[in-house]
């Protein structure tokens, strides 16, 4: 009894921390035990929401309230735009090709309700989606949920590797640059960052492929470059971890470089501000080492903007990085979405957009919560 009482006190005192920990337990435990992913996901999410609402209930409830309308509006908007182009029978022509019979075309038009008014079609889709039925790809015949289930891990992995890489590079550099603010170290670092930020990532990808997979530029007998890393394709982690990372190396770098530059600049900028605060001066006066000041005292309060931007980027990357995936032939959500848009495979588009919207909104929501939990003062001011 006293243990339970102690536990309950701990929960009450630090609700954010305990519920987050609980959420992680549910996620990992659920995966180990073999719960359907959706269930453990929902459980973890519920816990986090509960924890956050204890900290700041009204805020949480407001944000939660607009979650659903956001998702509905995003999908409705996409549906309308995607399906009002061209001829209503275009999808049928796609599937059957020019040789299709008129009856065949009519059959497909009926099957996909192509001749019904837009709002009817959207509501039909919505009512199915709510029940978990996202339909089948008109072109591939596969259930949309399967398409997504196969493509999502690829995009998520790319996102995670790129973001981790970006942070791993950006944080030390940002701290260093702030430390050496406006002196040579900073100027060099900042110039690099600005340059890296200015390279479009598809140009970077082309250059990376050229120099690391194709053997570079050859002039006469000499060539600068190597063929060490593969230029395309995807190998699942479960199949061969080493190959998996070799194949993901170039795509992750291409994506991460620009992001790292952006993060570094943001962190540097915030940190310079923080380093001029009184409590830093006090710590310095007390004799705390520079390194400890930077990492243990200054870093945390300087990371809010970084967290915001990081969150938004992560949320966007949930939908896959379309250009990178295409250039490297990675079968992720971005490729699937792009292909489906161009082929007017509207059920796949809707399914993926739904997942993207949900992912985006959720990640943003979580970042908001994290924000509020990390520093109650800035709860109301997040832009």
């Amino acid at each position, binding site marked *: 009894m006293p243990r339970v009482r102690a536990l309950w006190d701990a929960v009450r005192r630090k609700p954010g921390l305990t519920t987050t920990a609980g959420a992680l337990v549910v996620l990992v435990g659920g995966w180990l035990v073999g719960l359907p992913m959706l269930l453990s996901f929902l459980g973890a999410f519920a816990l986090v929401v509960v924890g956050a609402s204890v900290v700041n209930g009204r805020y949480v409830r*407001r944000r939660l309230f*607009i979650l659903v309308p*956001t*998702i509905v509006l*995003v999908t409705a*908007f*996409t549906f309308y*735009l995607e399906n009002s*182009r*061209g001829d209503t029978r275009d999808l049928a022509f796609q599937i059957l090709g020019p040789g299709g019979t008129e009856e065949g075309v009519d059959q497909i038009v009926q099957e996909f309700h192509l001749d019904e008014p837009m709002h009817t079609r959207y509501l039909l889709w919505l009512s199915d989606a709510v029940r978990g039925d996202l339909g089948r790809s008109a072109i591939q015949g596969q259930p949309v949920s399967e398409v997504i289930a196969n493509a999502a891990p690829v995009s998520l992995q790319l996102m995670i590797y790129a973001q981790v890489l970006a942070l791993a590079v950006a944080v030390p550099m940002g701290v260093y640059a702030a430390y050496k*603010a*406006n*002196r040579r170290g900073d100027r060099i670092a900042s110039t690099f960052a*600005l340059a890296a*930020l*200015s*390279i*479009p*990532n*598809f*140009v970077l990808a*082309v*250059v990376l492929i*050229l120099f690391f997979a194709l053997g*570079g*530029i050859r002039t006469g007998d000499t060539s600068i470059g190597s063929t060490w890393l593969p230029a395309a394709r995807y190998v699942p982690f479960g199949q061969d971890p080493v190959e998996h990372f070799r194949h993901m190396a170039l795509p992750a770098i291409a*994506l991460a470089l*620009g*992001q790292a530059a952006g993060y570094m600049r*943001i962190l540097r900028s*915030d940190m*310079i*501000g923080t380093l*001029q605060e009184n409590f830093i001066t006090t710590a310095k006066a007390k004799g705390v080492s520079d390194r400890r000041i930077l990492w243990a005292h200054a870093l945390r309060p*300087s990371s*809010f*903007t970084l967290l*915001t*931007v990081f969150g*938004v*980027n992560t*949320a*966007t*990357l949930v*939908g896959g*990085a*379309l*250009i990178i995936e295409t250039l490297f032939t990675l079968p992720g959500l971005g490729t699937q*979405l*792009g292909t489906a*848009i161009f082929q007017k495979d509207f059920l796949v*588009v809707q399914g993926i957009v739904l997942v*993207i*919207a949900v992912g*985006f*909104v959720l990640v*943003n929501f979580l970042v908001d919560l994290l924000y509020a939990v990390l520093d109650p003062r*800035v709860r109301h*001011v*997040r832009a």
Partner: protein
Amino acid sequence: MSGLDTAVVSTSSEHVTLGVDAEAAILAEADETYQARKLGFWFWASVGWLAFLVLSAVFADLLPLKDPMATFRGVARDGPSAAHWFGADNIGHDVFSRTLYGARRSLAVATVATLVGFTVGGVIGLVSGFYRRTLDDAIVAVLDIMLAIPGLVLALALVAFFAPPGRASPTSQTVWATFALSILAVPTIARVARAQTMVWADRDFVLASRTLGTRNLRIIVREVLPNILPAMVSIAFIGLAVLIVVEAALAFFGVGDVSGVSWGIMIQNGRSQVDRAPHMVLFPALFMFMTILSLNFVGDQVRTFFDVRESGI
């Protein structure tokens, strides 16, 4: 940043910075050195590059350039030469002339989109940040929705919806592509404007105005707006840079008018030959890089110039 793959880097300007050397002794002295070091050589170099680009794009017709749409026999894929300073592309176009003319489309689309985004986003952000409460909640919700739609889906759908191929001229396709880009730009600019407005609208001098009974509109226009402009201008420059890249990325996917000249189209066409004839990608990419770099740099400097650290006042 491609802009289609990742969100625009939004610098929320609650945390502002001053590039002052922290070891300067007196604030006034620091101010002076600060002012003197303000707009250094590189700033003016960047401005110079941008000016050169804009002027040559605007007056391209007057310059002795070859016709960018003319294909010359027998020079396809040749490198730089006396006749073709930047070489020729896949079908014999003059790369130099196309690079300069291509600036037109890239700059025009991105600039118009940024201006529109700046205006619309600015107004929305101002209103939202000033009036707060439910209006703010509603506007933020709408902005979030706009951000949640994947960039390519939005751009493609908008262009294809308003300017379907076969029924719309290439010009109108470019116009609608611009429109799509400005829609992409609005949420970010609005959020920055909103954040800035919220910070400034809480200030004492605004409170003072209110007490005096000044109408809200007047307060917004005369007190708040001038103060948020610097941050917004800075964001606008950076946003411009991002939109140039997004426009190129759209060309990559054949969205909008693919038959004209723009840097994105040039890069996409030259991509397959990058190991054999790198000049086709190199020059437009270089121009793009320098332009983006200049814009980023100018945007940075503008912000540093105007932003003042909170506790210094």
